[in-house]
């Protein structure tokens, strides 16, 4: 056997060994991917099951709220008239007096979006702790027990007493039809 043949055989064997090693590592990584995909599919299935009643619930809530709004609006309109109803609502609710084209107050009612990136360890480490603890609506820091999706506590304003309190027969400065 010539020296050239020996070198060829050694080189081919080395290349084959390297290929086998890399292919084994790739196969191991693919097995891990397969297992993780199984977990992801299970999670997605659970999400699909849990979000199944949302459409029905939202429709029902919208229907109920629409009925309630219609009832209250018709009651108010029957007592003080359409123009008086708008004036009365504006007198007791400053937000209702704002023009509809103004996006300012309306944005305060937008639902807070959940940042699912927090579940990623890499992103969680990269994010400063203080950034996730600030209320986006008010800009104030959150307390330790307040969750991001927790609504703000409602505080009663003394300037907005209950309409008709004190035995008065006027609502928001408007006479009531009897």
């Amino acid at each position, binding site marked *: 056997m010539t020296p*050239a043949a020996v070198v060829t055989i050694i080189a081919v064997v080395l290349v084959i060994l*390297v290929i086998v090693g890399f292919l084994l590592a790739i196969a191991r990584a693919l097995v891990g991917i397969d297992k993780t995909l199984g*977990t992801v599919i299970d999670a997605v299935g659970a999400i699909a099951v849990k979000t199944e009643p949302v459409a029905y619930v939202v429709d029902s809530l919208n229907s109920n709220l629409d009925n309630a709004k219609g009832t209250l609006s018709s009651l108010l309109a029957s007592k003080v008239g359409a123009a008086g109803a708008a004036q009365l609502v504006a007198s007791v609710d400053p937000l209702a007096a704002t023009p509809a084209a103004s996006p300012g107050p309306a944005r305060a009612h937008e639902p807070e979006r959940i940042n*699912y990136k927090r579940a990623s360890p890499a992103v969680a480490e990269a994010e400063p702790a203080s950034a996730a603890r600030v209320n986006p609506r008010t800009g104030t820091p959150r307390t330790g027990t307040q969750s991001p999706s927790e609504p703000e506590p409602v505080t009663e304003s003394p300037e907005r007493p209950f309409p008709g309190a004190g035995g008065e027969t006027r609502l928001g400065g408007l006479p009531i039809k009897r």
Partner: protein
Amino acid sequence: MILWWIGNVVLIAVIAPVVVFLLRAVLVSARTVERTLGDIAGVGGAMVVDLGPVSQLVTTVSLASETNAGITRYGAALDELL
């Protein structure tokens, strides 16, 4: 014989590095996909936890229906009173 030696040099100096480079690229991509899938699985688990209260929306619907009926009765009573 000289051509054989040239072939050996090409095999060792060109073919083997190219094979190693390509296989290493595939391995790095596979490991990156594995890491990313791990992050996605974590996010999916967090979403499942966050969606836990969704089942309570059935109670919310019931309460909304009761509230709607109450508002209707309250409005009718107010209509009679005022």
